[in-house]
C-alpha cells in the first residue's frame, strides 16, 4: 500500500524500536501493592469515593471523575485501601493524591464487572456515559478522558474518527505490539467508538514502518467487513502521531488554531484506547490495565508489558529483567516528549505508554550538549510541524515580549521537540518555549484576575458610596423634618 502525502516538515528519526518489539506482550504478575494517582496525566484529579481501611475488589470504583478532564479510577487489585495521600506521581505537576491499595490473595472481582449485554441497544449518549464510568482515557500519552472527547465530537458534529496507530515517537512500540496481537479488539473498539462519536467513517492510521501491524489490522478489517472502516498507511515521519498532524495527513484538513479537532469534523483516538473499549464491551472491565513499553539500554530485557494501572514502575522493570548498566534517567514516554521521573516508586498511569530507562548510550547527545549562541541557521523552522519560526520565538522568549510571542504563534507549538533536536547550537528550545508558554498563561491569568478585582473593587466602592449617600439622605430628611417649624420664619427673614 502506498504511503499518503503528509503534513509539511517533520523529520524521520532513528526509531530505536527493535529493542522492545521482537518479543510478545508479557503479562505482569499481580504486584503486592498498587499506587493509583487520582490525576491520571491531564492535571485534573478524580475525587476519592473510598476511605482508608476499606476493602475493594478488582474493578471497584475508588475515585469519581467530577471534572470533565479527570477520569474515573478503579481498583486494579483486590485488597485494602491503606493510604490516600499526596505522593510523587508521573503527572505534569509531579505530585498527585494517590490511593494506595495493598493486595490480598482473594483476586475478588467487583460485581459491576459484567459483559455489556445491551451494547447494541445503547444510544450514543448512553455509550459515552458508560465509557466515562469505565474510566476509559486516551492511552496514547495525554490520558485525556475518551468520553469528554467523544462528547465534543458529538456536539460539533464530527464526521470522521481517526484511530491513531502512528506511534511516531522513538523507542515506543506498545501500540505496534497491541495491533499485532489484538487487531480484532482494535477494530471492534473502533466501531464502538465510531458509534459513540456518531461519526460516519473511521480511519485507522498506521506508519509504514510497521508492516506486521498493518497486515494484522488489514485482515481484522477484512474479517469484519464494515464499509465505514478503512486503513490509512502514513509515512514514518516524526511527529506523525501528533493529533493535528495526523488529522492533516489522513483527512487532509487542518485543525484551526486554538480549536479542537472536532472543529475540523474529526475526532482522534488511540488504537490502544479502542482495544480498551473492546475489553470493556466484551468483559465489562473498566480501565484496569494497559500495555506499556519498557525499553532503553538500562533494562535487561526490553519488551512490552501488560500491567495493572498503579503498578509501581519498579515492578515493571523487575519483570523486564531489572536494571543493567548505569541508568541515568527514568523517562515516562519516548525520547522526544517523555517526562523524566524522579523515582521508580510511582505507579503506572493510564497516560504512560513507555518507560524508557536511559543510559549514557541512549541520551549522551543531550548530556554532552553545550549551548552556544543561535546562528540563525533556520534548521528549526525547516522541521517545525506547526510552521513556526523557533529562532524568532527564542528571541521573543528571551525578551519576554508577550505580544510578539502570541503573534509568532507560541500557543500553536505542539511541544514536539524537533527544533531542539536539530539545533546545531544545541539550545534547549523546547524547554524555553514551555517556560515562555507558562509565563504567557500566568500573565493572562493575572490580567484576568486583575480585571476581576478591579471590577469587584469598583462595585464595592459604589455600594459603599450609595450606602453613605442613603445614610446622608436619611439623616438630612430627619433633620429637615425636625427643623420644619422654623422653615417659614427662616424663609421670611430672607
Amino acid at each position: 500500500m502506498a504511503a499518503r502525502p503528509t503534513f509539511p516538515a517533520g523529520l524521520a528519526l532513528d526509531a530505536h524500536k527493535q529493542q522492545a518489539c521482537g518479543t510478545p506482550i508479557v503479562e505482569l504478575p499481580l504486584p503486592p501493592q498498587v499506587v493509583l494517582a487520582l490525576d491520571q496525566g491531564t492535571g485534573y484529579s478524580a475525587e476519592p469515593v473510598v476511605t482508608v481501611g476499606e476493602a475493594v475488589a478488582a474493578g471497584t470504583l475508588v475515585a469519581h471523575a467530577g471534572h470533565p478532564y479527570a477520569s474515573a479510577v478503579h481498583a486494579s487489585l483486590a485488597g485494602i485501601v491503606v493510604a490516600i495521600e499526596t505522593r510523587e506521581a508521573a503527572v505534569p505537576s509531579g505530585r498527585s493524591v494517590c490511593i494506595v491499595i495493598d493486595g490480598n490473595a482473594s483476586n475478588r472481582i467487583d460485581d459491576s464487572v459484567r459483559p455489556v449485554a445491551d451494547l447494541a441497544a445503547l444510544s450514543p449518549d448512553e455509550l459515552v456515559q458508560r465509557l466515562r464510568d469505565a474510566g476509559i482515557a486516551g492511552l496514547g500519552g495525554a490520558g485525556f478522558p475518551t468520553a469528554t472527547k467523544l462528547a465534543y465530537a458529538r456536539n460539533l458534529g464530527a464526521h470522521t474518527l481517526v484511530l491513531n496507530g502512528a506511534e511516531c515517537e522513538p523507542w515506543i512500540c506498545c501500540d505496534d505490539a497491541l495491533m499485532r496481537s489484538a487487531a480484532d479488539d482494535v477494530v471492534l473498539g473502533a466501531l464502538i467508538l465510531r458509534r459513540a462519536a456518531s461519526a460516519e467513517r473511521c480511519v485507522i492510521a498506521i506508519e509504514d514502518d510497521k508492516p506486521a501491524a498493518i497486515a494484522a489490522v488489514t485482515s481484522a478489517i477484512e474479517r469484519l467487513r464494515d464499509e465505514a472502516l478503512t486503513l490509512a498507511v502514513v509515512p514514518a515521519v516524526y511527529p506523525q502521531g501528533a493529533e493535528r498532524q495526523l488529522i492533516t495527513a489522513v483527512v487532509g484538513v487542518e485543525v484551526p488554531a486554538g480549536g479542537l479537532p472536532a472543529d475540523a469534523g474529526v475526532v482522534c483516538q488511540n488504537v490502544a484506547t479502542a482495544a480498551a473499549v473492546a475489553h470493556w464491551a466484551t468483559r465489562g472491565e473498566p480501565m484496569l490495565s494497559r500495555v506499556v513499553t519498557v525499553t532503553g539500554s538500562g533494562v535487561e530485557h526490553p519488551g512490552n508489558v501488560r500491567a495493572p494501572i498503579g503498578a509501581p514502575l519498579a515492578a515493571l522493570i523487575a519483570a523486564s529483567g531489572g536494571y543493567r548498566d548505569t541508568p541515568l534517567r527514568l523517562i515516562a514516554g519516548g525520547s522526544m516528549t517523555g517526562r523524566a521521573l524522579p523515582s521508580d516508586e510511582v505507579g503506572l498511569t493510564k497516560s504512560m505508554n513507555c518507560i524508557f530507562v536511559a543510559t549514557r548510550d541512549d541520551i549522551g547527545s543531550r548530556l554532552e550538549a553545550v549551548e552556544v549562541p543561535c546562528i540563525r541557521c533556520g534548521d528549526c523552522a525547516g522541521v517545525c510541524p506547526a510552521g513556526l519560526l523557533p529562532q524568532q520565538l527564542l528571541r521573543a522568549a528571551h525578551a519576554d515580549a508577550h505580544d510578539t510571542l502570541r503573534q509568532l504563534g507560541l500557543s500553536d507549538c505542539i511541544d514536539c521537540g524537533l527544533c531542539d533536536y536539530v539545533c546545531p547550537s544545541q539550545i534547549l528550545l523546547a524547554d524555553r518555549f514551555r517556560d515562555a508558554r507558562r509565563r504567557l498563561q500566568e500573565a493572562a491569568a493575572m490580567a484576568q484576575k486583575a480585571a476581576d478585582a478591579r471590577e469587584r473593587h469598583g462595585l464595592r466602592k459604589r455600594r459603599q458610596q450609595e450606602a453613605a449617600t442613603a445614610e446622608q439622605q436619611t439623616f438630612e430628611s430627619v433633620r429637615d423634618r425636625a427643623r420644619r417649624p422654623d422653615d417659614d420664619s427662616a424663609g421670611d427673614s430672607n
Partner: protein
Amino acid sequence: MNAGAILIAVLVAATLAVTLGVALGWAAARIEPNADSLVERIDALLPQTQCGQCRYPGCRPYAAAIASSAAEIDRCPPGGEATVRALAELLDRALRPLDPEFGVPKPAQVAWIDEARCIGCARCLPACPVDAIVGTSRQMHTVITRQCTGCELCLPPCPVDCIELRPAPAVSRRYSQPRAA
C-alpha cells in the same frame, strides 16, 4: 560663494527655526495630555490587589497620584519589579528599585480561613476590598480563592487569627517538564 547665497541660507534656516518653534510651543500649550486616560493606563498596569501598601486606598487612587506626580512608581510590592518596569516605560521615567519602606515583593498568595477556628464574627467581611470572603454572623466564613488578591487586609480584624496566607494555586498545568539541572 557670494554673500547673497549665505544670506539666503541663513534666512531659510531662521524661518524654519521660528516656524517650527512656534508650532511646537503652540502644540505644547494646546494639546494637553489627557489626564484621565493616563490614570486609566497606569491603573491597567497595577496588579489590582487593592492592598493599600502604597498608602493609597486602592490601586486607582495610587494611579491618580502617579499621574499627577504626587507619588513615585516604586510603591507597589505586589506588582514587583515587572510593574515598576512597565510604569517606567509608560511614563518614560527612570527605572528605580522598589522602595522597601512600602513592603517587599512576595510570591502570589491567597487567604485561607481555618474554618474549624472561625467564630463567625464577620469582621473580615468589610475589610476585603474585592468581596472575596463569604459568610455571615455566627456562620463560618470562607474565601473565594479565585477572587482573593492576597492583600492581607483581612488579617488584622480577625480576633482569633484563623486566617492565613497560602501560596496561590499554580495557573498552568500543561506543558510542564522537570527543569534543566
